[in-house]
């Protein structure tokens, strides 16, 4: 089954990416983790994302298009990246999620990927 692991990071965690003293440990942990995901041969696809300050949100308000700076919701933890992995079951997906480095301060959401639609509708 395919699961998406969504890595949520705190603002402080995002800030480590560009901090001279903390970025080596930050990127080192992610590089090691992603290296293991790849070596396990379970990665379908995955990317890191630029911080939420780089996000732009579009919505309709009273029928008018509204474009705003920032992510959809202003919460303490924001999406920092994702991986779709192919593993036998949720237990296996959670085993990998439990190793994600953002857990020190953030959280990781695991969700099954919607299976491909059956064109005959059966």
């Amino acid at each position, binding site marked *: 089954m395919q699961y998406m692991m969504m890595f949520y990071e705190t603002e402080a965690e995002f800030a480590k990416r560009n901090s001279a003293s903390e970025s080596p440990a930050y990127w080192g942990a992610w590089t090691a983790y992603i290296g293991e995901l790849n070596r396990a041969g379970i990665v379908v696809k995955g990317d890191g994302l630029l911080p939420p300050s780089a996000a732009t949100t579009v919505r309709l308000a009273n029928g008018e298009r509204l474009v705003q700076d920032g992510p959809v919701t202003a919460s303490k933890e924001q999406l920092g990246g994702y991986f779709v992995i192919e593993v036998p079951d*949720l237990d296996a997906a959670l085993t990998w999620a439990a190793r994600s480095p953002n*857990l*020190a301060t953030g959280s990781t959401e695991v969700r099954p990927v919607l299976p491909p639609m059956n064109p005959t509708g059966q």
Partner: protein
Amino acid sequence: MSLGPGSEAAARRAAEHAARQSYGRLLAYLVRSWRDVAAVEDAIGEAFARAIETWPLAGVPANPDAWLLVAARRRLMDAARSSRVRSEGLRSLLVTTPEQGEEADMLPDKRLELMFTCAHPALDPSIHAPLMLQTVLGLSAERIASSFLVSPDTMGRRLSRAKLRIRDIGLSFSAPEPEHLPQRMSGVTDAIYAAYGQGWDSIASDDVSIRGLSEEAIWLATVLVHAVPQDAEAQGLLALMLYCQSRAAARREDGRFVPFAEQDIARWDAAMIASAEHLLARSGQKRDPGRFQLEAAIQSAMIQSRVTGRDMRQPLLALHRGLLQFAPTIGNLVGHALALANLEGAGAGLDALDTLDASKVAGYQPYWVARAHLLEALGTAGKPAREALEKAIGLSEEPALRAHLQRRLASLGG
């Protein structure tokens, strides 16, 4: 007469104390005649709720256990009467219910029998430990779930399914026949071990602070040792967990992970170590060795080497060899390789690591920590050591441990 909030708090404490002390005893006792774990749990839950309600007003009864037993049984009878489906159960309950006077003084302790049922081979081994934690200690599914890396909903469903299965396939809540006893006993000890360090197959060499329910597992093992004082492995298991637990405070300094060799031994819990030593000595007198006694003996020797400064490398290697006879798990094989390296050099340890099954070690974090350590000791720090450390970092769960390994990686340079 009005009772102040102080006496209410006292009653609540009495109820909570009774809960820890009596929950498993009550459940183990009632479930023998009722055989429906979920129904008995509900009844006991209501009895405790009523106790918290009425004891502050009426005072704590002289025998809280007996009070709770009567209340829970009344509740079971009421539920049975209101359910035609349960009529068979009611009949069997009425047949097997002992006289009131018989149990008023002391509830016979049937928790061992309950543990045997929880760890029955007819149930999936992965549910043994959660069932035991819930039925013997009264822990909620929420509390148990995270340490087994599943959601509370999932854990709740798995527990419910197991309880239905116990009822439907008619497992009895009695001790096994003598010829099955050793095998059934190892089911019980394995489940308690799993509760302590869920996920690792060798808890001793690793940091388990975010896993497992260590205090609860120690409690279960204590119950087991009291129930079967003649069983050497039960004592070995409790000793092993006490040794590991005694170092809990020393494993962290300012949030940093501290490896065994660098721990401040003044921060070890001396009383806990003394209890463990006493248990290990008692188990040894029985001349019936097993994996848990050997693992405890390894812990004892490691602690001695730090405390007395004596060279324990030879006995440690012998103990690790012995352990492999009983439990050649991947964790124990890695432990053996490290013991070998300590005595005969890093090269010998690496040779031993190289013989291990590649598919088993690929995702096993302690293997890569050990490999990096030995490569470093051999002086071939360079690329292979870095790669092994990076694998270990990528497989780490605990932030403090990951940070520790990252510092080591940085110190390797390159």
